[in-house]
């Protein structure tokens, strides 16, 4: 299966005021997105999920910098392109959806014009054609009365409609890859389900790939084919979605699964992973998860485990994957 995007050894760092040393936010991430598939990128806040995607798009903030690695997209290394060349790819061949649909639309421009702008920019359509196409895509993403919504300002639409507009905007140029950065976090669950279904339908129709960045394992189970779990700037586990939910191997992933609320006997406490994410400037030596891991041994604290295949393309960065049973017990879906 060909990969639409292949990230290899990505390292990204950030400078902050008054500190000479740059903080490494993403440390050697390898990630491949197969054509037509949905890849989930999971992890808690600050583990480098968004930085990974923004690096690829060349959209890091001013104090951020890609230190090493490559991101092959159709044979071209995106990290080496100039801003001008990247602009032709952004929105056109790779597009993004953001978390907060209120703030990711410009409040003083009508939603229709914002979508039409993307069209006119990349396909050189005239105003009339762009408007017609925009109304068409609005209809497709399930916006009722698309002609009237075209002239609406973002504040006149509900959260779900706004996210539909964002999806419409990102889909209107038929991109090869859609990067969705927590697209449903700001929505309630019923709207979330609608939006996920919409994305899946659109994917089926257009054959695009999706990189779904989320910390919601429910979303992952719902829509993803392949899952990458990130922790402290590194990929710790990669697996097929069924394999992951059936028998996740890394203690961190197992902890995440165990901390999902589920139907358990009354009075049983919800599991939580002790401790907090390590400081970017003071990473533990050896395995980065070792200070919080219940199964950590002396070796884990000194030596860094490689991302090893534990069978059937299931990768895990642990010396003893699936070791012990611990308090989280046999975690499965």
């Amino acid at each position, binding site marked *: 299966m060909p990969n639409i995007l292949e990230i290899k050894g990505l390292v990204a760092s950030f400078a902050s005021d008054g500190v000479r040393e740059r903080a490494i936010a993403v440390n050697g991430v390898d990630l491949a997105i197969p054509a037509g598939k949905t890849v989930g990128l999971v992890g808690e806040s600050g583990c480098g999920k968004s930085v990974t995607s923004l690096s690829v*798009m060349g959209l890091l903030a*001013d104090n951020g910098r890609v230190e090493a690695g490559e991101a092959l997209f159709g044979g071209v290394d995106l990290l080496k392109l100039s801003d001008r060349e990247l602009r032709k790819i952004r929105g056109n061949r790779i597009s993004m959806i953001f978390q*907060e649909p209120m703030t*990711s639309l410009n409040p003083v421009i009508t939603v229709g014009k914002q979508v039409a702008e993307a069209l006119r*920019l990349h396909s050189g359509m005239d105003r009339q054609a762009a408007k017609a196409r925009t109304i068409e895509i609005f209809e497709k993403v399930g916006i009722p009365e698309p002609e009237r919504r075209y002239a609406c300002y973002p504040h006149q639409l509900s959260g779900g409609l706004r996210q539909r507009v964002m999806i419409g*905007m990102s889909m209107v140029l038929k991109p090869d890859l859609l990067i969705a950065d927590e697209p449903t976090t700001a929505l309630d669950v019923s709207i979330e389900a609608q939006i996920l279904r919409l994305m899946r339908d659109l994917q089926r129709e257009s054959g695009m790939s999706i990189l779904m960045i989320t910390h919601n394992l429910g979303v992952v189970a719902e829509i993803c084919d392949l899952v990458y779990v990130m922790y402290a700037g590194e990929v710790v586990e990669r697996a097929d979605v069924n394999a992951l939910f059936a028998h996740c191997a890394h203690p961190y992933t197992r902890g995440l699964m165990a901390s999902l609320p589920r139907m358990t006997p009354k009075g049983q406490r919800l599991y939580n992973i002790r401790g907090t994410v390590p400081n970017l400037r003071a990473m533990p030596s050896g395995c980065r998860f070792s200070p919080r891991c219940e199964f950590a041994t002396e070796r884990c604290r000194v030596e860094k485990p490689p991302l090893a295949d534990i069978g059937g393309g299931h990768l895990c960065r642990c010396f003893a994957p699936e070791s012990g049973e611990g308090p989280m017990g046999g975690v499965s879906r």
Partner: protein
Amino acid sequence: MKKRFKDTYTAELSRQILEAEIQPDQGVFRSILNMFKVNRAALLGLVLIVLIALMAAFAPMIARYDPNALDLTSMRAAPSPAHWFGTDDLGRDVFARVVYGSRISLMIGFIPSLISLVLGTVLGLMAGYLGKVADGIIMRVADVVLAFPSLLLAMVVMYTLGSNILNMFIALSIINWAGTARVVRAQTLSLKEKEFVEAARSMGVSRARIVFRHILPNCLPNLIVLFTLDIPGSIMWESSMSFLGVGDPNAASWGLMVSQGKGYAYMCPWLILAPGLAILVTVMAFNFLGDGLRDAIDPYMKT
């Protein structure tokens, strides 16, 4: 009976919800219209400005005398039915001069404000969006302009370039742009961190387009307020400068009239009262309007 009430009540509610759906939010312009209904001072300001503008436009029909026609038979005549505001030391009709003076004063109000608005906006956008060196250079120059006493700066410009009305526009633009640039820069700094700017970038929109099509429209409400408050400022500066004798001696502005009349202030108070009141009314009208606009627009700027 009770049920009937409940029915009509729910009907009313659903009607309101339906209307809210159609007209979900007022928007800035509706809020400005509402402001005029409540804020009588702003409405008065608007009416006065319209009247003054009409006066300037139809000056020849309003004034019965040529503002520059000398009448040496009736010099420094007191107000009378023939000369409503009296005549000056050369026998020129003061009413006609005040009416024609509105042309000069409005021009002095609008043109430098417009120039400094455009200049300040472009420089402020550049400083805010580009940051780094551009920000440093533009804002340090703005600091120098703002730190310098405005009147002194404008007078220096007038002395160096010469006393005519074009140089007056330049001088007033130089002292006014820095304030606008500061406001626009501050707003750009906060706007460029907004997610919609990132979203626009992720759609491949160029920097120039982001600045002018995405950030600038978000600054517009503030710019309208700044503009309305710059106008009376410019009129005041010009009056002060004409009074001090560095204005254009050929442009019969209200400030110049006060300056020329000050020698006769005790004997012929109408010489300074008429143009002085004209300045007062115009400046107050613009200030009332500007304050009202600011109140109406402020809540939109907070979100």
